[in-house]
């Protein structure tokens, strides 16, 4: 086994076990922490594929910003293991059946399909220079459209934030 393979298997095991931890742990704060660890493992995979920019942006955006907000909300709501609502048997049973059916379908689909092997030799496409050139030449239209989408989401957030103020003014 080469260093690459050792790292690959380590990261894979880490990603999968942490992802399981997200859904299996009772405390939501622990779930969030497991999810952050999963993001780190995925970033490690990006680094192995020589996509350093994607790796670090994954950490900055997901682990550094979005998960902090998740943690924020969970901490403020003070969700604990004992506040978790008890679901009745019927719902649990239905959940198991539907989940199992989905699992079977996915398994059947994956069994017959052939997955293309990823090229192991490092490419330079994930480096920031090449990524920037690709984004701003070949994919410039989708890129700009998605940024407009973000802008509209931002404006929407501002509008929602403003609204309460206006209502309270009317009340006064």
């Amino acid at each position, binding site marked *: 086994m080469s260093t690459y393979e*050792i790292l690959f298997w380590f990261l894979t095991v880490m990603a999968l076990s942490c992802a399981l931890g997200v859904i299996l742990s009772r405390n939501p704060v622990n779930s969030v922490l497991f999810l952050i660890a999963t993001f780190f493992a995925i970033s490690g995979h990006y680094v192995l594929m020589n996509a350093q920019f994607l790796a670090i942006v994954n950490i900055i955006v997901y682990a550094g910003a979005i998960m*902090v907000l998740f943690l924020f909300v969970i901490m403020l709501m003070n969700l604990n293991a004992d506040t978790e609502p008890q679901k009745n048997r019927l719902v649990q049973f239905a959940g198991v059946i539907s989940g199992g059916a989905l699992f079977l379908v996915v398994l059947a689909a994956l069994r017959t399909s052939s997955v293309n092997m990823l090229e192991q030799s490092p490419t330079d496409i994930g480096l920031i220079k090449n990524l920037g050139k690709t984004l701003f030449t070949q994919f410039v239209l989708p890129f700009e459209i998605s940024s407009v989408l973000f802008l509209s989401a931002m404006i929407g957030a501002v509008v929602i934030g403003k609204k309460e103020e206006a209502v309270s003014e009317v009340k006064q």
Partner: protein
Amino acid sequence: MLLLQIDTAFIIEKILLITVILLGSLGIAMYLTWAERKVAAVMQDRIGPARAGIFGLLQPLADGGKLFFKEEIIPDRSTRTLFILGPALAMLTALMTSAVVPWGPDITLENGSVIRLQVADISIGILFIFGVVSLGVYGVMLGGWASNNKFSLLSSIRAASQAISYELAMGLSLVAVLMMTGSLSLREIVEQQHGFWDGYFTWNFFKQPLGFLIFLICAFAELNRAPFDLPECESELNMGYHQEYSSMKLGFYLFAEYINLFVSSAVIITLFFGGYNFPFMDKVAGAASPIVFSLICVLIFLTKIICCILFFMFIRWTLPRFRYDQLMRLGWKSLIPLALFNMVVTGAAILWIFK
């Protein structure tokens, strides 16, 4: 089984470098606590620590010893693992940033081998720093929440929202710098600021004064230092997020802050004040042997960092604390538009004047 494909000499060199940098930053952080108290004493017309050693120079050791031997208390109702994880994460993220800072120029030995005074020259150095800084919140948040104390929780929420708000302006102010340098690698940014005068001032500070100002203010906020030390303002929150901590866990939080101060000063110097570059460095390079020249460069770099740290300390003991709404207004309504403006002006200047 080919397990060790990596060059052993390379590993040893890097481990040595990492050890030196870690021990160095720990030692410097130790004496920063002493310096902070001395600076405060001078500003307030006191003597400051004077009992342990000459000028109180052994005071950090005494403090450290005291923290080590104190009773370690983990609150009964706390979340135990996270309570321990908090200070550990704070320390880890504080120490991680130093990996990408170039501490000096490459040393080329007579047999042609090159020693690099930088742990990792990655092509995304600045983004790495951003990533680590954005992770720094977790130590504070987890510690504050796990303590199961409302003051700790309030303080950690303050710290997190402050850090998130100021990260934006910090990133935007750096975008302008990156547009000028055209590289994310810290080594390349330092090398572009070679010397001091090259027909124009080479240091980024002279090209991006506004960007520097925004970055500096954001650095104050990210470091939780006065005038932005709201997460630990005693009058409202007792001690802040480390209220329930005792012994060396408390020490880790306090220590991590000083390491952060040291490392972020290093980053500021690297980005805006030429890193290890100094005026007439080419003449010195011609006169001295490579190793001596590198040592001079490292010393110059450390001197600049210490000046920057002293500036941070002077500000801390001069300005009063902001109110929380003032802090948020400054971050969102002043610094972010200013940083965007700076970005647009820089872009226009690059497009129409320098091309």
